[in-house]
């Protein structure tokens, strides 16, 4: 199975599912024009709420990553949205990789790095400082 959200992560399942769909598109596991699993079969297979799958698909459609065709199901967008996103994410990945590598070299643990990223995302631009 391509998708496997973890319900006890504290991160909304629809966001995890969105990330996993995006990742599948990035890696080429899902290609433009290809069909995604239907809401109902996917909910039943993953044993998660069908409304959660529907929400993830709606948001992905809103971001232009997939298209919901009435009665036919969900398809990976053919337009450049997915491609552009892939390129953008690739570039971002390089930036992140460099930052992580540098922090590791400075002796920070994986957990510490993860927390720093989370704190930054939560809007604490200036929280820096030393624990010691």
């Amino acid at each position, binding site marked *: 199975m391509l998708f496997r959200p973890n319900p006890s992560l504290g991160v909304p399942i629809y966001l995890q599912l969105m990330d996993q769909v995006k990742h599948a598109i990035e890696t080429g596991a899902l290609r433009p024009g290809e069909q995604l699993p239907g809401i109902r079969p996917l909910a039943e297979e993953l044993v998660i709420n*069908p409304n959660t799958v529907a929400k993830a698909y709606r948001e992905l459609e809103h971001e232009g990553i997939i298209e919901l065709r009435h009665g036919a199901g969900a398809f990976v967008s053919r337009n450049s949205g997915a491609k552009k996103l892939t390129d953008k994410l690739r570039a971002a990945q390089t930036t992140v990789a460099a930052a992580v590598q540098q922090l590791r070299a400075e002796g920070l643990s994986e957990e510490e790095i993860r927390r720093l990223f989370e704190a930054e995302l939560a809007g604490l631009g200036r929280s820096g400082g030393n624990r010691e």
Partner: protein
Amino acid sequence: MSERLSIETSGLRKNYDGVEALRGLDLQVPAGSIYGFLGRNGAGKTTTMKVLLGMARPSAGAARVFGLASDDPGASVEIRSRTGFVSEEKSLYGYMTVERIIGFTAAFYPKWRRDLEQRYIRAFELPLDRRVKALSLGMRSKLMLLLALCRGAELLIIDEPTAGLDPAVNEEVLQALVAYVSGEGATVFFSSHQIGEVEQIADRVAIIHRGRAVVAGALDDLRERFRRVQMVFDGEAPAPAFRAPGVVRAQRNGRSMTVLSSAGADAVIEEARAWKPVSVDVVPVTLKDIFLETVREEQ
């Protein structure tokens, strides 16, 4: 998105012999949702279900199912005809065989779903010729669920559907509930002590504590709103007095302070900035943490 409510209670109270089982319970269960109802033993979960089904009369406040008042005898008959209920007692006629009890139950319900019956007999691998009293707990639970699912009910009210089940049967039961909601557009309202399974299949939850809903809403909203903020200070942490809304709990311990917020981390951090913390960490909070924090008795 439809916001038609399958269940609504407001200010619901129920006293039994001077004991306040429900003390102003407010619940809103939208049609088409899978609603997880969490609470410690004795919090009022079973009482709530009994009131919804007209098996107990509220002392005050109102309970509506499909918009019908549950304490009106006429309405209660209609509510029960449109609702499948599985109680935690799982009592059945033990002398009947599985096949007999399915046929016996089907006769009461004009909308009985023969197709679902056949599907679940196969999926649950139920032994048709065995007597009910000789069934394992897992088999008995699956049989009870089958009887509730095949009635063609719009609403399932289930008291601890997976209590005592092994992980494989547990998953089968959850799968059946998900399939029922996605296939039939029905609503499921279930109580559970298994927070993991609530996180897995529910889109809405309520945590009931001492007869009141202390947390209620869409699970995704709760996941996005609840945050734990951990701060470390140069010297002794200041007294954690917050004006920020949504602070559930704030504790200090030596140089560190931990704040649980139900309204995101930003306001807490903004307020704490004046105390000049040397480090601030924000971590997401799991439903289990939310549960444990909100039902903890004040010391």
